C-alpha cells in the first residue's frame, strides 16, 4: 500500500499577475487552489493608481476634463461625456441639439470600438487567434474618424463643458455612414468565426454564471447585468443627451454565463450602429456650444450624474464649493464594482475559467485603479 502521508493536503496558493497577458493590464489575482479547482480568490489592485480624484481638487473644471480620458482609456469619449454632463448639471446648462447629436454619434462609435477591442482580446485569451486581427482592423476605422475629428485617437478630449470641442469636419456624415455600412457585415463575420464554434461554446457555456439576484447584490451593471436577464440600460431608464429620440433595443439573455455576455455585447454593437444611423441622418443645425461662462464657477452644491458606459454605469459625483476648482470629484467606475463579483463567479471553477471570466467582465485597469 502506498504511503500517502507525505502528500500535502493543504491548499495551494497561486499568483496570477500582475504581469499576465490575460489579466488585461496589471491585475493580480491570488488564487487558492485545490488541484485545479478554485477555492477562493483575492484581487490585488492599485498598480495603476494615479490619484485622479486628488488631482481634480487641484485643477479647474475645464483643466480636469482631459484627465478623465485616462480612466477607461479604451472608451475615452464616454468618460468625457459623463464628466461634461455632471458639470453641466451643476451649472444648470444643457448642450445644444447639434452638440447632443454629435455626442451620441461619437459615444456610440466609442462603444463599438470598446466592444471590438474586448472581443478580440477575449477571443485571444480563450485561444482563438484570428478575431483579434479582424477586430483591430475595424477599430482602426473608428479611430481614424476620431483622429480626423479631434486629432487624437485614444485620449480624445472630444467634448467641452457645454458642448463640443470642434465643429464636425467636411465629410463626417459620409464617413460615419460608410463605416456603419461596412461594419454590420463584419459583426456577422465575427459571429461566423465564434458563435457556433464548438471550442468557443464549450469554453464559455455555463462558465462564470452570475444570476440577476447576485448581480444586484454586487452592484454589477452593464452587459454583465443584461446577460443575467435584467432589462436595464441607463440610456433607456434615465435618458441623457437625447437618447430618448432614438429607436433601439436593449439586448438581454437569461443564463448570465460567459456565453450570454458574449452574445449581449455582439447585439449591442448592432444596436449602436442602429443609433448612429438615426443620429447621423439628421444632425440639427445650430451652435455647438451652449452659453457657458469663460470661467466655470458652479454655485455651491453637488450632483451625481451617471451614463451607460460600455462597461456599465459610470457616475460622477461632484461637490462644488463655489470656486473655480471642484471641491471633490468622485468617479464611480463600473469596472471596479464589476470586478468585485469575480470571486463569486469563479469559485469552484477551474483556472482556465478564470481567464475566460476576467475577459468577459471587460475590465480596464485604468478605471479600476484610477
Amino acid at each position, binding site marked *: 500500500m502506498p504511503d500517502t502521508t507525505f502528500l500535502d493536503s493543504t491548499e495551494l496558493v497561486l499568483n496570477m499577475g500582475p504581469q499576465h497577458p490575460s489579466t488585461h493590464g496589471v491585475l493580480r489575482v491570488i488564487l487558492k487552489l485545490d488541484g485545479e479547482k478554485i477555492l477562493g480568490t483575492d484581487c490585488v*489592485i492599485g498598480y495603476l*493608481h494615479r*490619484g485622479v480624484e486628488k488631482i481634480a481638487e487641484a485643477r479647474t473644471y475645464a483643466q480636469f476634463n482631459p484627465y478623465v480620458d485616462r480612466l477607461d482609456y479604451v472608451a475615452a469619449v464616454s468618460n468625457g461625456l459623463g464628466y461634461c454632463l455632471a458639470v453641466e448639471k451643476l451649472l444648470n446648462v444643457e448642450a445644444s441639439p447639434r452638440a447632443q447629436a454629435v455626442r451620441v454619434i461619437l459615444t456610440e462609435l466609442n462603444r463599438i470600438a470598446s466592444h471590438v477591442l474586448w472581443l478580440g482580446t477575449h477571443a485571444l485569451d480563450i485561444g482563438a487567434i484570428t478575431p483579434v486581427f479582424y477586430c483591430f482592423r475595424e477599430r482602426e476605422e473608428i479611430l481614424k474618424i476620431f483622429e480626423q475629428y479631434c486629432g487624437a485617437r485614444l485620449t480624445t478630449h472630444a467634448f467641452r463643458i457645454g458642448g463640443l470641442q470642434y465643429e464636425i469636419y467636411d465629410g463626417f456624415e459620409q464617413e460615419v455612414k460608410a463605416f456603419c455600412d461596412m461594419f454590420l457585415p463584419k459583426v456577422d463575420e465575427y459571429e461566423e468565426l465564434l458563435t457556433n464554434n464548438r471550442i468557443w461554446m464549450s469554453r464559455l457555456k455555463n462558465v462564470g454564471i452570475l444570476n440577476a439576484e447576485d448581480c444586484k447584490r454586487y452592484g454589477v451593471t452593464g452587459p454583465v447585468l443584461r446577460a443575467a436577464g*435584467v432589462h436595464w440600460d441607463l440610456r433607456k431608464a434615465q435618458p441623457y443627451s437625447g437618447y430618448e429620440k432614438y429607436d433601439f433595443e436593449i439586448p438581454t439573455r437569461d443564463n448570465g454565463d460567459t456565453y450570454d455576455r458574449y452574445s449581449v455585447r455582439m447585439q449591442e454593437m448592432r444596436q449602436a450602429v442602429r443609433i448612429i444611423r438615426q443620429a447621423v441622418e439628421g444632425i440639427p443645425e445650430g451652435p455647438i456650444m451652449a452659453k457657458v461662462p469663460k470661467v466655470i464657477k458652479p454655485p455651491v452644491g453637488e450632483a*451625481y450624474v451617471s451614463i451607460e458606459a460600455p462597461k456599465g454605469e459610470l457616475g460622477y459625483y461632484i461637490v462644488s464649493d463655489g470656486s473655480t476648482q471642484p471641491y471633490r470629484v468622485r468617479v*464611480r467606475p463600473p469596472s471596479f464594482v464589476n470586478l468585485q463579483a469575480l470571486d463569486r463567479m469563479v469559485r469552484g471553477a477551474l483556472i482556465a475559467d478564470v481567464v475566460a471570466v476576467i475577459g468577459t467582465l471587460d475590465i480596464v485597469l485604468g478605471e479600476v485603479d484610477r
Partner: protein
Amino acid sequence: MPDEKPVPPKPAPKPPAVMAATPWKSDLTRELNDRFGEGVCQCLSYVGQNFIVVGPQMVVALISYLKVGPGFDYLVDITAVDWPQRAERFELVYILYSFARNERVRIKTQIADGYRPASVVAVHLTANWLEREVFDMFGIEFTGHPDLRRILMPDEWQGHPLRKDYSILQQDQRWVQENLDGASGQ
C-alpha cells in the same frame, strides 16, 4: 488742499455660501417620517436630485429599510467628502437606486474624525470594496466590515491621500525608499 476722500466702509465679510437645497416632499418621505419619526430624516432636493440627511447611527437602519420596503435594492456608490473646518469633519455619502421605481436617492451623514460608522456590507455586498476604498482614502474605519484593508494604496502606506490636509505632492517617503529604490517618479 486736496479733498480728503472718505474712506469707503469695508464690505461686510460674505457669509459662507451654502447649497440652495429645497425640502423634498413625496410619498416616500412621508413613509420615512411615519417609520422613523418626524425630523429624523431630513429630506432635501438639489438640481432635481433627492437626498436624505440622517445621523450616523441611523444609516444602516435606513438603508436596510429602503432596500426591503421601497425597493432601493442597488447600492451604487459609497464615498466621503472631507470638510476639515467643520466640527464633524467627514461627510459620508451613499448613493442608492431602485430598479422598480427607477429612482435615485443619496443618504448623507456627518461624522467626526475617529468616529467608526457601522458597515453596510451585511445589507449590500457591494459595499465591501467601496468601504475599503473610503477607509484607504480617508481613514474612516467601518465597524463590522469583514475585511477592512487598504485597496488601492500599498498596505504599509502611511496617510490617507484624499484628506484635505494631505498635500497633492506628499507621499510616504519611507515606503518609496524601501520599495522603489528611492525613485519616486516625481
